[in-house]
C-alpha cells in the first residue's frame, strides 16, 4: 500500500526553478504560472495532493529548502 504524504511549500522562498516538479515521481507538483511571489517569480504548488507519498524527492532536490514534507505516521 502506498505511503501517504503531503508537502508545504514556502511560496516566498520558492524561486520557481521547477526541479521539484521534474523529480516528483507521482506528478504532485506544478508551477503556478498564473501568479508570482513578491520577487516576481512563479512558485510551486501541489496540484495532485492525493498522489503524494512523502518520498521527499522534492525537498531533497529543492535548492532553496522551500519544501517541508509530511508523511503519515505509520
Amino acid at each position: 500500500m502506498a505511503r501517504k504524504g503531503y508537502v508545504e511549500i514556502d511560496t516566498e522562498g520558492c524561486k520557481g526553478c521547477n526541479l521539484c516538479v521534474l523529480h516528483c515521481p507521482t506528478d504532485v507538483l506544478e508551477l503556478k504560472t498564473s501568479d508570482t511571489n513578491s520577487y516576481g517569480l512563479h512558485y510551486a504548488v501541489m496540484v495532485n495532493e492525493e498522489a503524494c507519498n512523502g518520498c521527499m524527492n522534492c525537498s531533497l532536490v529543492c535548492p532553496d529548502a522551500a519544501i517541508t514534507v509530511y508523511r503519515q505516521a505509520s
Partner: protein
Amino acid sequence: MTAREGYKVVAKRPSTLLDKRMHYCPGCFHSTVHKLMMELVEEMEIQDKIVGVCPVGCSVFAYEYMNIDMQEAAHGRAAAVATGVKRMLPDKLVFSYQGDGDLAAIGTAETIHACNRGENFTFIFINNGIYGMTGGQMAPTTLEGQRTSTSPYGRDVAKVGYPLRMAEMVANFEGVAYSQRVTCTNPAETRRCKRAIKKAFEMQMKGLGTTFIEVASNCPSGWKCTPEESVTWIEDKMLPYFPLGVFKDVTKKEKKAEA
C-alpha cells in the same frame, strides 16, 4: 507549521541554514549544496566544531546563509586560508567551498599544494564550467565548444586547452585521502552528494588527509538556460567529460591491504 493530524514532518529546512533568502538564481546547485551541508552540520552535530572558508564567486556570501563560523577568502586563496585555519585549529573540521574559477584558475597553486601537503581539510568544489559571479566567462572547466562571454564562438581547445579534471588530478597526490565527483541532477545523485560530503567530513575527523568533493554543478544564468535544461546539459554534456565516481579513497585501499 504544525503537521496535520496523523502526519509528521520527514523533511524540512535545516535549522543550521539561516532564515534568509539565498541570492542564488533559481535552480542553482550552489543552494542545493549549501542545504545539504547544513543538513549534515545539523545531523552530525558539528556546528561548534566546523569552520568554513568561502571563496570569491557566486558563493561569496555563503556565510550569510550557513549558521557556522566562516571566513571569506580572497579569490583563489580559499585553500591557503583553510590551511591557515586548520593549522591553527587542528581539532576543528575545516572546509573550503570553491568555484571552478577560484579553485582551478587563479587558485591552482594553492589547490595543488594544499592537496600535495595533504592538508587535513575538505574541499567542496562546485564545478559549473563557468565564472558565474562575474557574468559567465570561460572557466578552466568550460567544455570544448561551449560558448561563454569570453569564448563567444565556443571554447577552442587548440588555443586555450582542454577543461581540467580536478577530482582526477588531485587524486594523484599522496596527501589526498578521498576524491569523488558527484552531482545533484536528481534525487539519487543528490543523496550521493550528501553522503560523499559526509564521508569527507568523517575522514577529516579521523585525520586521514585532504578530502576533495567535486560537484558537477550548474549555472542556469551563465549557461543561459532554464534549471531543467541545465540538468540535461550536465547529464548529456558534462558527465561524459567529467565522470562521476570515486577517484581515490584511502580507506578502501587500507581495507584491500588488510584483506
